[in-house]
């Protein structure tokens, strides 16, 4: 099979699995997960083959795997869609395939496959456990998810969306994959739809990302109307980019009121389009100010969180900006780059401060995702293309690991909850945990690796290399504010990660439930171990060549490979001790302070960082509620419904009703009844009268008829005779 054909086939298995599960195997749990995991495996296999083949191609950036076909006729030409695997998509494909497969396998264990069905379980709620008789006495065990098959169908579709997005060679199919994921995130965040919080979170996620998507669609439309193509490689022709980078986006605005909108009027077309597309990313990757949906998305099952946070959705957002980076870079004014850098850096530190005060194990990770995505966006904003991709990939691995690890922790805690029977204990609150390292060793060690990677623990973890590269790029290119902001954010990251590890795993169990926590089944721990391997090893392929001692031991493969995507290969940065020292200091310092501060903290009351402002996420939910949600409700309920609909339109309609009634009865009385009816009746009566009176003529006797005919003939003949004789005078 040619590589191009194989690339076309990669996204198909998950979507086939989706349809098969939905249509046929919904009742059969084993068949459903076999289909879904099998499909994920096939896609994984295809991705790996493509990846390996891509490695074998020299100058893949100039000669990527491409294949396209005509799709929509647009006037004289065709809109073509196709697949493209260049170094960037190959690198992304690699981590997507791995994380997706791991999450699929993990989901089997997470949803308690093989456990009995609970008596009290209902669809739309998390399973509450079942009572079984064993060893002569009753005890509670976890019960299988009631909507097990549906879950696998949804994540199958989710994976399909991501594969479509990564393999697209144009913005339109990328957007299609993007929106499929938007739908799936809605379905999966609201998976336990009987919980109001899950429903609200699903709607919130969908609506918030929609805000970004509208702008993105505008950007796509603008780009298409200006260039006539959405194909990446066609858009990124140097001449076209230069033209777009130099053309003013709003020439009239800049000419008439340059002082009024100095910011907007300075945009070039490339910058304006890139920023519109970037707004889509802000929604999808949960950047400030559209970050609010991501923490709430924790309402979904944990594999979904991993799916959204690592393998697919938010990575897709960053991937889109990385994809469109040449456009961003083409903007000669540099305004758009500055905006991107600002948003990224601000989000990085902003989310990190919130994460410090969260107690829910998954919410901490959610904010850390937002913060880490901010790192990547900021890296792109300062032009550190390779560093952004590097961090995107390492982050996907260790964040998938952390989420799956936290799911494992929650699962273990739920064991404890089932054991004690005290369902009021929140299995996700870190202050209810503690000392889990002894109960769940595999989860502990893998979580530790993931956490250290997230913190950037020096030298051995992947997170260190990617984060260090971002800091080094920020420093090397003289972006001081970005450098300082990100350094502080990195410190906070290490701090809250250690806080999380300390509260969860170290010390002594704080509750009876934590004492009875249990290690999770192999379907959950094996993915953890595999992801932990990547969370460590993936960093080794991106060691800068100038790094002391280690540099040059392994070639900086990632830089060469991914950098080849761009027309101009980015230059490797000269080594500098200051960013390295900073990144060593913030990582180790943050971890140490985190441990120091929280090793003896046993309840939220002792935690001095539970500041209301941070705890309530800077009141963003409340502010948005006031600014957007409440006005929207008011607009719908009061303005549209009460005033417009009931007041204005209904009163007009109520005017029309009686008026039409009046006109109708007038017409009936004076036109219909009087004229039409009487005329109708009259015609039938006249016909009847004539028929009745003339029927005597019809005697049935042939000779009488002939006599009539003769008489009439003679009369007519006489009349004609006299007429011509005396009036026309022709005869």
């Amino acid at each position, binding site marked *: 099979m040619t590589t191009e054909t194989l690339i076309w086939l990669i996204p198909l298995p998950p979507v086939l699995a989706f349809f098969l599960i939905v249509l046929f195997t919904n009742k059969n749990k084993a068949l459903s997960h076999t289909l879904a995991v099998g499909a994920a495996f096939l896609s994984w296999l295809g991705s790996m083959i493509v990846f390996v083949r891509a490695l074998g191609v020299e100058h893949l950036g100039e000669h990527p795997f491409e294949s396209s076909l005509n799709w929509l006729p647009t006037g004289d030409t065709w809109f073509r869609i196709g697949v493209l695997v260049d170094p960037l998509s190959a690198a992304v494909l690699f981590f997507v395939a791995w994380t997706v497969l791991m999450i699929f396998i993990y989901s089997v264990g997470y949803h308690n496959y093989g456990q009995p069905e609970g008596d009290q379980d209902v669809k739309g709620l998390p399973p509450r456990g079942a009572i079984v008789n064993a060893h002569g006495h009753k005890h509670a065990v976890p019960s299988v998810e009631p909507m097990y098959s549906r879950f696998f169908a949804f994540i199958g579709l989710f994976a399909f969306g991501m594969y479509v997005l990564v393999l697209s060679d144009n913005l339109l199919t990328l957007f299609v994959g993007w929106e499929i994921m938007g739908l799936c995130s809605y379905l999966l965040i609201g998976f336990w739809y009987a919980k109001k919080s899950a429903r609200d979170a699903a709607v919130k996620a969908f609506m918030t990302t929609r805000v970004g998507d509208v702008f993105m669609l505008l950007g796509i439309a603008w780009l298409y109307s200006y260039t006539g193509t959405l194909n990446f490689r066609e858009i990124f022709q140097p001449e076209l980019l230069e033209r777009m980078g130099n053309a003013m986006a709003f020439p009239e605005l800049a000419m008439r009121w340059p002082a009024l909108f100095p910011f907007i009027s300075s945009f070039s077309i490339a910058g304006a389009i890139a920023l519109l597309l970037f707004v889509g990313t802000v929604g999808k990757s949960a950047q400030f100010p559209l970050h609010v949906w991501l923490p709430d998305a924790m309402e979904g099952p944990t594999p979904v969180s991993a799916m959204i946070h690592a393998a697919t959705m938010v990575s897709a957002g960053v991937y889109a900006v990385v994809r469109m980076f040449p456009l961003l870079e083409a903007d000669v004014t540099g305004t758009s780059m500055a905006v991107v850098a600002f948003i990224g850096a601000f989000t990085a530190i902003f989310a990190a401060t919130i994460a410090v005060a969260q107690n829910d194990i998954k919410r901490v990770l959610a904010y850390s995702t937002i913060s880490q995505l901010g790192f990547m966006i900021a890296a792109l904003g300062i032009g550190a293309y390779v560093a952004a991709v590097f961090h995107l990939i390492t982050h996907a691995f260790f964040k998938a690991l952390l989420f799956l690890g936290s799911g494992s922790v929650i699962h273990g805690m739920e064991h404890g909850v089932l054991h004690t029977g005290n369902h009021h204990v929140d299995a996700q609150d870190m202050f209810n945990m503690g000392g889990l390292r002894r109960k769940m060793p595999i989860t502990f060690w893998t979580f530790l690796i993931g956490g250290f990677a997230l913190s950037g623990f020096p030298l051995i973890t992947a997170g260190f290399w990617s984060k260090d590269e971002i800091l080094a790029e920020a420093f090397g290119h003289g972006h001081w504010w970005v450098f300082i902001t990100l350094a502080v954010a990195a410190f906070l990251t290490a701090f809250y990660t250690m806080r999380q590890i300390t509260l969860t795993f170290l010390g002594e169990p704080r509750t009876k439930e934590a004492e009875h926590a249990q290690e999770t089944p192999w379907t959950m721990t094996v993915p953890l171990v595999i992801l932990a391997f990547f969370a460590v090893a993936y960093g080794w392929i991106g060691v800068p060549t100038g790094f002391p001692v280690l540099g040059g031991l392994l070639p900086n493969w990632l830089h060469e490979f991914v950098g080849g995507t761009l027309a101009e290969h980015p230059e490797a940065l000269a080594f500098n001790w200051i960013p390295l020292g900073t990144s060593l200091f913030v990582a180790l310092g943050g971890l140490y302070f985190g441990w120091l501060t929280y090793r003896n903290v046993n309840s939220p009351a002792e935690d001095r960082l539970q500041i209301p402002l941070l705890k309530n996420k800077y009141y963003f939910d409340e502010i948005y509620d006031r600014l957007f949600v409440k006005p929207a409700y008011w607009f719908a309920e009061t303005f549209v419904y009460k005033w417009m609909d009931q007041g204005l339109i209904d009163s007009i309609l109520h005017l029309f009703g009686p008026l039409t009634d009046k006109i109708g009865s007038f017409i009936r009385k004076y036109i219909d009844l009087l004229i039409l009816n009487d005329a109708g009746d009259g015609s039938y009566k006249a016909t009847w009268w004539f028929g009745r009176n003339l029927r*005597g003529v*019809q*005697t*049935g*006797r*042939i*000779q009488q008829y*002939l*006599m009539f005919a*003769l008489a009439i003939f003679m009369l007519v003949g006489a009349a004609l005779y006299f007429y011509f004789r005396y009036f026309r005078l022709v005869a």
Partner: protein
Amino acid sequence: MVPLSWYLILAAALFSIGLFGVLSRRNAVAILLGIELMLNAVNINLAAFWRYGNVLHMAGQVFAIIVFAVAAAEVAVGLALVISVYRKRNTVIADDIDLMKW
């Protein structure tokens, strides 16, 4: 040569006799006989006008022959009807055959 008007008078007389027969006779067969007289009066007219007009135009003669043919057919159908009526109603008196009335 005998003038045209004599032929016309003869034809008119024959037509009137036929018409009188049709109107006055009660027997259906006799009515058919009257019709034959009227048709032949027309034939005399046709032949006379041909003879006194342009002899090379054969329309008058041809028309007379067509009338013969139609008359023969008409008599055949007419007699068949009369026989059929006679078999059903045992009469050939035209006034008795008056089913087609109000």
